[in-house]
């Protein structure tokens, strides 16, 4: 039987507030363990939590940026469960009245546009961090807990089960990341756990509309793990079904080293969270005016930016899509164009040499050895005719390892384009004299033969002759 995959994602996105959601403890990453804690986030008796205003603002902006309806009346609830990373024995979250609902984002997968619906976005607090003393989670005899992260504000962004491949899930998560970066509510540093996903995967006979039994993998914190874990689950579930077995609804953990998912059996009925309204936190009522004020503060979002680059600069949909796919990339592009460099050349250089080098060395664009300003200056040297594009590639390679300005590199390495007619003419004459065969072919009407001669002149000039002038001079001499 042929199966189709159904995937839904719950993305947890850490907000970049200075303080925690219900207390004034700092949120900074990497602090000494158990130093960003207070009676409120440690869940000591008798304390009163108070909502951080910024969290609500960020949540509403995230909702608006993902086309959600904002609930003017929302409240917090207690989600009860026992786990040592949760000192209060409940997580303060939102149950039936979340801040935002019914949104969507569009993704592009292999040239196809697809709309992924968002069920809801709600605010909640993060849990602490368990440090296992054994070699892995199962071998530990005991655990140590660091509560610094307890109470750090999170958005949980819940999608409908609208994705049907690992690539779609990845693209969707990349889109959410880009939007959260654009609106500046999260640092989205995946290596610090700012952005992590719980992913649900199920299979059903192709064409069926009923959902199959799903498994869930929690806390996936890289795009690669997301894709690998989903692909593994698809394979595993297909095998189980084809052998006539049944999928058990369960939580599985993804082991990136071994590339497999493992069942995490737990004794208790973990899904009975017995939600109840949080009596210590009054409801949040947001006026339509406040919502509109937040909407007016939103920056240009990835889709709009992409459309603008296509319209204003004539970039291809593909190039514009890549350039706007992250805030850092879009800002790099803007900075290149701001130097006065041609917008289309800027896109070509980014899509070409820059991304190739960044990918090869796995460097993030924000840490690119060739800064936007220097790339812009180099492109302008090409535009002014100081260097050819071919020499540009040499200069770019040089800039990758050397912090000098492109003009200095061009000068130091003697790469200035030869635009002196006399100098080029001398080489042209020599090449014509040395290459009778292509000259003959050209004169016999095979105009393409000029290419070989141009190539020779460029070679003789070590790539420095202005190609356009070479072409013109050659044609003039051969046609005369």
């Amino acid at each position, binding site marked *: 039987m042929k199966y189709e995959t159904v995937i839904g994602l719950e993305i947890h996105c850490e907000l970049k*507030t*200075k*303080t925690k959601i219900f*207390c*004034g*403890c*700092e949120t900074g990453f990497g602090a*000494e*363990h*158990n*130093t*960003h*804690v*207070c*009676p409120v986030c*440690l869940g000591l008796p008798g304390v009163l939590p*108070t*909502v*951080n*205003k*910024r969290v*609500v603002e960020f949540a509403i902006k995230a909702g608006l940026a993902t086309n959600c309806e904002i609930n003017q009346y929302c*409240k917090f609830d207690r989600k*009860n469960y*026992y*786990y*040592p990373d949760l000192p209060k024995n409940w997580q303060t979250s939102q149950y039936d*009245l979340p801040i935002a609902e019914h949104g969507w984002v569009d993704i592009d997968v292999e040239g196809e546009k697809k709309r992924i619906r968002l069920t809801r976005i709600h605010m909640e607090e993060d849990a602490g961090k368990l*440090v*296992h003393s054994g070699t892995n*989670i*199962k071998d*530990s*005899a*005991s*655990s*140590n*807990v*660091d*509560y610094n992260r307890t109470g750090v504000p999170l958005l949980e962004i819940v999608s409908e089960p609208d994705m049907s491949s690992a690539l779609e899930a990845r693209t969707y998560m990349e889109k959410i990341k880009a939007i959260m970066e654009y609106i500046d509510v999260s640092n989205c540093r995946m290596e610090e756990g700012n952005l992590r996903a719980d992913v649900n995967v199920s299979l059903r006979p192709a064409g069926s509309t009923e959902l199959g039994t799903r498994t869930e993998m929690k806390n996936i914190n890289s795009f690669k793990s997301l894709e690998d874990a989903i692909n593994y689950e698809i394979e595993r579930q297909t095998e189980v079904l084809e052998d006539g077995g049944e999928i058990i609804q369960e939580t599985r953990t993804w082991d990136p080293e071994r590339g497999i998912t493992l069942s*995490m*059996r*737990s*004794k*208790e*009925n973990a899904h*009975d969270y*017995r939600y109840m*309204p949080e*009596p210590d*936190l*009054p*409801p*949040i*009522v947001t006026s339509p005016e406040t919502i509109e004020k937040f909407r007016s503060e939103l920056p240009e979002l990835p889709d709009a930016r992409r459309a603008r680059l296509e319209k204003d600069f004539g970039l291809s949909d593909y190039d514009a899509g890549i350039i706007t796919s992250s805030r850092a990339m879009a800002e790099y592009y803007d900075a290149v164009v701001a130097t006065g460099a041609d917008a289309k050349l800027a896109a070509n250089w980014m899509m070409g040499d820059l991304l190739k080098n960044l990918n090869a060395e796995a460097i993030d664009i924000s840490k690119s050895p060739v800064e936007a300003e220097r790339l812009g200056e180099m492109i302008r040297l090409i535009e002014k005719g100081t260097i050819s594009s071919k020499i540009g590639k040499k200069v770019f390679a040089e800039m990758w390892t050397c912090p000098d300005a492109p003009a200095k590199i061009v000068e130091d390495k003697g790469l200035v384009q030869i635009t002196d007619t006399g100098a080029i003419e001398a080489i042209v004459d020599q090449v014509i004299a040395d290459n009778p065969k292509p000259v003959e072919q050209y004169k016999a009407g095979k105009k393409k033969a000029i290419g070989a001669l141009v190539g020779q002149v460029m070679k003789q000039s070590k790539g420095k002759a202005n190609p356009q002038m070479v072409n013109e001079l050659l044609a003039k001499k051969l046609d005369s």
Partner: protein
Amino acid sequence: MKVTKEDIANVAVLSRLSVSEAEADKYMGQMDKILTYMDNLSQLDTESVKPTTYALPMQNVFREDVVRESLDREAALANAPLREDGYFKVPKVLEG
């Protein structure tokens, strides 16, 4: 009787309580009384009444996003039954 022994066992597990046979019988009766009382209340017609989500006439109590001093680590760990290298030490929780 609506409350069963299984209900008591289930609630006990969820609340991390150990309940003896004799206690289970006692609580079964008590919980049943509570639920019967709730049933009486639910006979009221509340069709036109908005659900209550918060008992006090309050809303929008916020604090600004300003850092306040945290606890000293020693103070934070002072009541911990077990500790190790500045961490709260707890028994392992996952089943193998």
